[in-house]
């Protein structure tokens, strides 16, 4: 693998087909020579968004009729259908059965019974509420923090490289390790957080992850930390679309920083901001490993996200049908919430 990688790196920004082509100035070799390659990069960059349209045009070259295409598609299509689409439908079907683990009598079709039980299951709805608080509590502050960081990284500041590197490290870390790391930080005796608080004479410190009121906020902070890279990188990409001339013109006209942000920057990054907040919300609502490692849903279910609840139900108690019903409810509610959010935002766009 190493020689290929080496080749890939040396190709960077030179080969016409290099995927790095668009905006490759920051390739490994020339992070400090943006001016030379920037124009070429910008030129290639135009190709990508138009790729779809070029594809349409390709049909007249007769490429769409190429029968070999099927042989290229089938190897991936079969596992997708058999192991992804199929199980998904199977899983939705399971929600209407009394499927359980380790039972000998055949699984029965029980209609909406699981959903009726779920409707009265206050523990599940409590977990659902925790999930929503967690998802919003992580997504919103994370977006604001990442936006601030992305804007700062666009400024010509020293030490910026350090912030950039640090901001991307959590991306490469296993979620389990992130959880372990923050357990060490939050540790009531040996943790650095309590020690810092004691040093600053701000009280004796808290059992962050086991306190009834502190557990959820503590976990949310970890969620924000862990998701910073994706959000920051997405917003940095969005900032590329900010028309520089407009920014300068606004500055010449005497618009302040805030006004320039609102009238020039924000409209340009808005589509990406919308997409990344929506995606983050889904991911966070469905997240598992981080909280599993930090608190396992405790204390007293205060941090029991819906995924943890469904996991316990399915693989702790073996209630497959019931857990599948939970999954269905989660998808349904999240879809509705997202539809409302996106519809509201897009309507705002028109005005």
């Amino acid at each position: 693998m190493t020689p290929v990688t080496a080749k890939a790196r040396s190709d960077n920004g030179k080969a016409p087909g290099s995927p790095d082509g668009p905006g490759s100035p920051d390739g490994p070799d020339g992070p400090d020579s943006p001016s030379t390659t920037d124009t070429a990069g910008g030129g290639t960059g135009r190709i990508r968004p138009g790729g779809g349209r070029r594809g349409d045009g390709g049909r007249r070259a007769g490429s769409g009729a190429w029968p070999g295409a099927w042989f290229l598609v089938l190897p991936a299509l079969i596992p997708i259908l058999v192991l992804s689409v199929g199980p998904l439908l199977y899983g939705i079907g399971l929600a209407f059965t009394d499927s359980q683990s380790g039972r000998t009598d055949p699984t029965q079709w029980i209609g909406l019974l699981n959903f009726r039980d779920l409707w009265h299951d206050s523990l599940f709805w409590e977990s659902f509420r925790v999930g929503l608080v967690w998802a919003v509590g992580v997504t919103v502050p994370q977006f604001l923090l990442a936006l601030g960081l992305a804007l700062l990284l666009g400024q010509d500041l020293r030490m910026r490289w350090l912030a950039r590197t640090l901001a991307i490290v959590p991306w490469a870390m296993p979620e389990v390790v992130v959880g372990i790391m923050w357990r060490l930080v939050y540790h009531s005796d040996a943790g650095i957080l309590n020690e810092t608080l004691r040093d600053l004479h701000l009280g004796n410190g808290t059992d962050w992850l086991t306190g009834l009121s502190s557990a959820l906020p503590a976990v949310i902070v970890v969620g924000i930390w862990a998701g910073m890279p994706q959000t920051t990188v997405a917003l940095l990409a969005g900032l590329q679309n900010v028309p520089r001339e407009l920014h300068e013109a606004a500055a010449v006209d005497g618009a302040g920083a805030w006004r320039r942000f609102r009238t020039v920057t924000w409209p340009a990054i808005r589509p990406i901001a919308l997409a990344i907040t929506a995606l983050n919300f889904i991911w966070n609502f469905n997240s598992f490993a981080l909280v599993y490692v930090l608190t396992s849903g405790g204390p007293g279910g205060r941090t029991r996200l819906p995924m943890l609840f469904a996991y316990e139900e399915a693989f702790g108690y073996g209630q497959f049908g019931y857990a599948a019903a939970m999954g269905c409810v989660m998808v349904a509610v999240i879809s509705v919430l997202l539809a409302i959010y996106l519809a509201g935002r897009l309507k705002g766009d028109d005005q």
Partner: protein
Amino acid sequence: MKTTAARATWRSRAAARATSRHRCPRPGAPRLGPRRRAARTGQYLALLCYLVFLAFPLLWLISTAFKPPAELATLHPTWLPERPTLNNFRQAFDEQPLLRAAGNSLITAGCATAIAVVLATPMAYVMARHRSLLSRAATGWVVVSQAFPFVLVIIPLFLILKNLQLINELAGLVLVYVVWSLPFALWMLTGYVRAVPREVEEAAAVDGAGKLRTLVSVTAPLLAPGIVATALFTFITAWNEFFFALVLLKSPEKQTMPVVLTHFIGTEGVADLGPLAAAALLATVPSLVLFAVIQRRITGGMLTGAVKH
């Protein structure tokens, strides 16, 4: 999945930097008025806050990994180990089968990556080059597969794998990882294929090369860097994955790295914090190294691709 899908471009920072060079003079330049200087100070303060927030948990993890038991047991822990030791690492290997766990992770992630990339590359080519109903359906599936909670997928997969006697087998986990990483690999590769100019292929066709010949000797070499980036990214996400491994692997000798790491927590006492930190640190090294290799190559991301400008 989360880590993989929001990939976007790091190249933006270069562009941003080029932009900012035009806009702002360097700090200390004579044109800087008092208002600008105040703004600049504010920016540095903000940057400092970010640095602290981003760095302190990492520093603490590293510091804990090198601390001897006495320093871990004290009520007043210090930022840096006073007498750094490597004992924690040795103890971590004694307490849990870390080498075997790493081996399991390597096999699972490696096989899953190889299969996923081999399956996804041809399909990604078709999706990028031929706008058909199938391509659109596949794109739709890529998006939908992001939104479904894993629990809805893992229960049926669990039952299916149980029938195939693949529960508690690495092969079963490989199968799940292949399916789970395909959407992302497809998405990433489609972008890379689009970046290969169609004209190159047309030129080869004019020169008399058949379709297959063109694909193998013209397109594939140009696509190679993208395939490598996709493969490394898939490998990292599979190496880091926890939920599926937790559900599917029961016996300790089969478990992958992230699952074995959680066993350290089960027995957590003050004395075990050192090995815990040491093992966590070691488990991160492979993904961090690979990520450093491809970090700059993750381009043309999903979001920039999805949003039309």
